[in-house]
């Protein structure tokens, strides 16, 4: 049994400079370990390389140096299942809700006999029971994102990557989704790596918070959130944590921009 779902060691990533000459370092020797079964958030300002980090872990972005290992629960290095919830739903609009989930199941080579059962289970979990035959464009933005979450959960991933999944939604919908996500995770418990620019969101959702600074991205603070679940969004202890983190953030950012 592996103890860590993700192990990142000395990761470096460079992008070509916007002016066309040379390259700049986005991520510089970043190391990070995410324990199996934990909910970890990475918080940082826009453009700090959070999404790039997730994309490297997911294998859609190459890295320049360092090691990234995603391990399945039984410790096998290859064949770990990765679920990904993007900022936008990225659904296949020409397929029904049901077939969108089956697309992921087929891609992951999951036995056909379990498809219907999984579709029903995970759609029910995200509160979309009965929407199987609907097409995505007939659903609201929040519902589409729920389908994307169901799709990612249905493959029963070893790690679930979430890239600011609620940032495209209006605040009221986003808030409801956060509370619902907590409830969903009482039933399905993959390891989660959640990326956000909102400290409040990170503190409310996660057990581990990693704070990231800009140019190049590095982790300057790790915080455990020990408040037991279920949590109330208005819990004053969460506010206190958030306030403390905001202060530290500005101290670091000011150094960075000096």
């Amino acid at each position, binding site marked *: 049994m592996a103890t860590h779902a993700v192990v990142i060691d000395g990761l470096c990533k460079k992008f070509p400079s916007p002016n066309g000459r040379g390259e700049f370092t986005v991520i510089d020797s970043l190391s990070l370990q995410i324990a199996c079964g934990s909910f970890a958030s990475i918080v940082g300002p826009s453009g700090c390389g959070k999404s790039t980090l997730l*994309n490297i872990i997911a294998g859609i972005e190459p890295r320049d140096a360092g090691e990234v290992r995603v391990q399945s629960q039984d410790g096998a290095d290859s064949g770990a299942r990765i679920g990904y919830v*993007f900022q*936008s739903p990225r659904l296949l609009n020409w397929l029904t809700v049901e077939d969108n989930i089956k697309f992921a199941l087929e891609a*992951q080579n999951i036995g056909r006999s379990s498809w219907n059962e999984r579709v029903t289970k995970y759609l029910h979990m995200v509160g979309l029971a009965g929407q199987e035959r609907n*097409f*995505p*464009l007939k659903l609201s933005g929040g519902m589409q994102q729920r389908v994307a979450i169901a799709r990612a959960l249905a493959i029963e991933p070893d790690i679930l990557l979430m890239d600011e999944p609620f940032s495209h939604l209006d605040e009221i919908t986003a808030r409801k989704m956060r509370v619902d996500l907590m409830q969903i995770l009482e039933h399905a418990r993959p390891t989660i790596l959640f990326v956000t620019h909102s400290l409040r969101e990170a503190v409310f959702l996660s057990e581990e918070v990693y704070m990231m600074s800009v140019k190049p991205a590095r982790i300057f603070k790790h915080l455990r959130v020990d408040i037991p679940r279920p949590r109330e969004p208005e819990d004053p202890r969460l506010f206190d944590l958030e306030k403390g983190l905001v202060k530290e953030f500005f101290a670091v950012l000011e150094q960075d921009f000096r």
Partner: protein
Amino acid sequence: MKFFRPEAVPGFLSAIGLLLVWTGVSRFFLPTFLPSPLALLSQMFSIFSHAAAYLVIGKTLERVFAGLVLSMLLGSLIGLVMGLRRSVESFFDGWIMVLLTFPSICWAFLAVLWFGLSDIAPIFTIVLIVLPYVAMNIWEGAKAIDRELSDMATVFRAPRFLFLRKVLIPQLMPYIFSSLRISFALSWKIALVSEAFGASRGVGKELMYWFQGTRADMMLAWGASFMLLMVAIDALVLRPWENRVFSWRPAAV
């Protein structure tokens, strides 16, 4: 269903007007030179009271269909690879330009010289003229593929064939259908021209025959019949098929 639609009135009036003017003008000419609408209609009925007419139309349709399917398949394949691979793009780019700019009528004549009076000549002509349009269209489509969806498919480790079926081709469907419509309209016109001097049987051959007999009425009757058939195929096959494929789109308001 509403039976009276005010927006249809101008179209209706212009059709009535045309028929009236046509009837009036036709009085000054021989019926074989410019038949009245009614005379034309009766010629059409007389054509289709002979079984041979259906064989002639069937032969032409067969060629249109073969040319259309071949151009769509080859054109889509070339366009798709061009859109996805830079190196292939520059390889085919020049050829597409050559085909697009070469005079169509040359192909029709050359095909007869090369293949004689056969089925191959009209099909060859259709493919050479229609294929570049299809390839261009699908090429545009392949360049507009949504990278975010491709990344999503990669993250979920979709194998190539699944990606092709569920991610790539559905995104190309609008381009495939617009190609199909252009190709269909072009194919049957080309087929008739090519048959006129390169086939032993077919609607084009009929037109040539009645042309040589200076029978404008028969040419119009054949032309109008074929036109009706093509409109019917469009309305009864292409449109319903397109509506079915795009049923996932919310209805346009």
